[in-house]
C-alpha cells in the first residue's frame, strides 16, 4: 500500500513530507472540527433541528445566508467588471487599484467594520446623504449586505483575473473576423469561459459572507430578528453559557461551508472536463 503510494514520486522525502502534511492538517484543521461535530452529535438530528428552528436562530440564519447570497450576487456582477477592467485596460494607477482589491483581505475585519459603520451611520459621509430621504443604511440588513460585499470582492476578482489573463485576445479577434459583434463576442465567447471562475468566486464569497463576523457586527446594529447574524448569535449563546445552542449553530454553518466547498470542486471538475487545459 505504502509502496504504491510512493512509486509515482521521483522526489526524495515523500514519506516524511507526506507524514508532516497529514499530521499538520489533522491537528490544525480536522481535530477541532471533529470535536465540534462530536459535541453536536450528542444532540442528535432532532435536537439540532429543534435549535435550528427556534425563531431567533432561524431569523439569524436567514439574515446570514440571505444577505451573503445577495452580496455574492452583487459581487459576481461588479467583481467581474472590476477584474475585466484591471486585466484588459492600461491606465495610470492600475497597479494601485489592483492592490486595493486586496484591502478587504488584508485589513483586520474590525477595522473594516468600524470604517464602514462610521461612513454609513446616519451622521457619516454617506449615511448623512441618504438620511434626508428617510433611508438608513447602518444598523439595517442593507448595512450588513454592504459589509459583505466589501469582504467578498477580492474572492471574485482574484478568481476571475487569472482566467481572463489566460484568455488570449485572439479568440475575440477570431469571433470578430467571423462577423460577431462586440456584444455577441462578450456573451458567447468570453463569458462562457469565465462562468466557472465566476461561480467559484461566487461560492467563495458566499462562504466568506455566511461566516463573516468582524466587519459586520459594527454596522449591523445586531437587532434580534432583524439584523442579527448567525455568527453573532453563537457568541450571544456562548456568553449566556448555552454551549449546546452555540454548538448546534456552529455545526450547521460547518455543514454549509462543506457544501460550498463541494460545489466549488464540482464546478471546477466540470469546467476542466469541458474546457480542458488548452
Amino acid at each position: 500500500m505504502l509502496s504504491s503510494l510512493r512509486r509515482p514520486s521521483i522526489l526524495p522525502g515523500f514519506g516524511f513530507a507526506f507524514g508532516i502534511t497529514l499530521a499538520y492538517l489533522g491537528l490544525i484543521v480536522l481535530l477541532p472540527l471533529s470535536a465540534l461535530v462530536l459535541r453536536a452529535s450528542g444532540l442528535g438530528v432532532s435536537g439540532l433541528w429543534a435549535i435550528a428552528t427556534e425563531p431567533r436562530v432561524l431569523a439569524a440564519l436567514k439574515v446570514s445566508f440571505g444577505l451573503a447570497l445577495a452580496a455574492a450576487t452583487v459581487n459576481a456582477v461588479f467583481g467581474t467588471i472590476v477584474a475585466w477592467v484591471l486585466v484588459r485596460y492600461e491606465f495610470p494607477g492600475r497597479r494601485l487599484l489592483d492592490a486595493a482589491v486586496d484591502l478587504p483581505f488584508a485589513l483586520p475585519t474590525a477595522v473594516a467594520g468600524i470604517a464602514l459603520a462610521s461612513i454609513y451611520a446616519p451622521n457619516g459621509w454617506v449615511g448623512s446623504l441618504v438620511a434626508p430621504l428617510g433611508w438608513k443604511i447602518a444598523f439595517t440588513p442593507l448595512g450588513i449586505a454592504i459589509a459583505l460585499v466589501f469582504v467578498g470582492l477580492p474572492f471574485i476578482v482574484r478568481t476571475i483575473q487569472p482566467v481572463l489573463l489566460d484568455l488570449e485576445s485572439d479568440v475575440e479577434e477570431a469571433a470578430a473576423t467571423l462577423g460577431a459583434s462586440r456584444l455577441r463576442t462578450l456573451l458567447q465567447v468570453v463569458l462562457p469561459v469565465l462562468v466557472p471562475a465566476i461561480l467559484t468566486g461566487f461560492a467563495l464569497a458566499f462562504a466568506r459572507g455566511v461566516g463573516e463576523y468582524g466587519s459586520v457586527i459594527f454596522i449591523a446594529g445586531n437587532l434580534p430578528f432583524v439584523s442579527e447574524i448567525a455568527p453573532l448569535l453563537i457568541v450571544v449563546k456562548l456568553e449566556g453559557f448555552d454551549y449546546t445552542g452555540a454548538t448546534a449553530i456552529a455545526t450547521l454553518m460547518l455543514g454549509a461551508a462543506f457544501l460550498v466547498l463541494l460545489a466549488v470542486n464540482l464546478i471546477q471538475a466540470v469546467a476542466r472536463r469541458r474546457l480542458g487545459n488548452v
Partner: protein
Amino acid sequence: MQVRAQNIIKRFDGGPGNAALDDVSLDVGSGELVALLGPSGSGKTTLLRVIAGLEQANSGQVFFGDEDASQKSVQERRVGFVFQNYALFKHMTIAENIAFGLEVRTRGTRPPKAEIKRRVLELLDLVQLSGLDKRRPAQLSGGQRQRVALARALAVEPKVLLLDEPFGALDAKVRRDLRRWLREIHDRTGHTTIFVTHDQDEALELADRVAVLSKGKIEQIGTPDDIYDHPATPFVHDFIGEASSLPVVARDGSFWLGAERIGLPVLGGQAGQGRLFVRPQDVVFDQAGGIPAEVVAVRRTGAARRAEIAFPALGGERVEINAPAALNFQPGETLPVRFMRGTFYPG
C-alpha cells in the same frame, strides 16, 4: 477575389520612429496563394492584420476587388483569418466552432439550421475530420485544431483567406503534412490566400508568389524560383537559402578578391567595390588550380561535407562551401577553390 494593399504605413507608437510597415504595397491576384516571408519583427503579421482590419493603418488603402475596404470594420470585411494558436472557442464543440460564423449572422442572412448543419459536415469532410464534430478543442491534437480553425474560417465563405503562421506551433512532421494539405485545399477551393511564415521552405514550397519583408518594407516579390535564383537585394540573398558574402572589386571585366582574380564575368554596368554573394554549392575545391583558401572548419552534413574557408588575402572573412565527402582534407590545410557562380551587389 483580387486583394490590393496600397501604400500602407503603420506605426505603433504613433510617433515618427521606425514604422512597422513603411509604405508597403501588395497586389494579390484572384485565387493566388501568396506567402509573406521575413525575419521576426519585419512586419508580416502587421500587414496581414491590416488587410484583415484587425489593425488600422496610419495611411494607405486596402481593396478587395474594386471595393475600398479600408473604412470597413473587421466584421464587414468577411475575411477568413487563421491564427497561429488556433484561437478556437474552447467551450464549444468542433461543430459549434465551425458553425459560429454562420450562427452569428443577422436573421435575414442566416442560413436555416439544416443548411448550417450540412455545411459544417461538408467542411469537416474537407478538412478530413469527419466524425469529430461532437468533440471539444481540448480533445484534439494541435494539427487537428488548426484544421478546425481553417474549416471555421472557410465556413463564412470569405473573400480572402489570411493565415498567420498557421503551422508555427506544430512539430516538423505535422507541419510538412499540413503544408501539402493546405495547398490541396487551396487548389480545390480557389480562395485568394495570403499566409505569413518565417520558414522559407514553407514559403517556397507552398506559395505561388513570395513577398520577402524586412524592416517594414517588401524587399522583393516574385515566384519561388525568382526569389531563390535572382534575389533582388543582398538581404534577400542572405535570407533565402544559405549564403555567404565577400568584399570584391569589379574592375577590367573581372571580379577581384584582393589581388586574386575570380573567374566570373562582370555584367555590363557593374564596377567598383561591392559584395559577392555565393551559395555553398557555388564555390568548389579544385585541385587543378584556383584561389588559395584555408580550411578553417569541416562539418558533416548528410551526404556531403560543409567546409568553412577563409582567404588569406582578406583577413577574417569566411565562406561556407560544400565539399564531397570523399575529398580528404583537414582544417588548417590550404586548397585552391574556384567560383562557379555568384551575385554581385555594389556598395
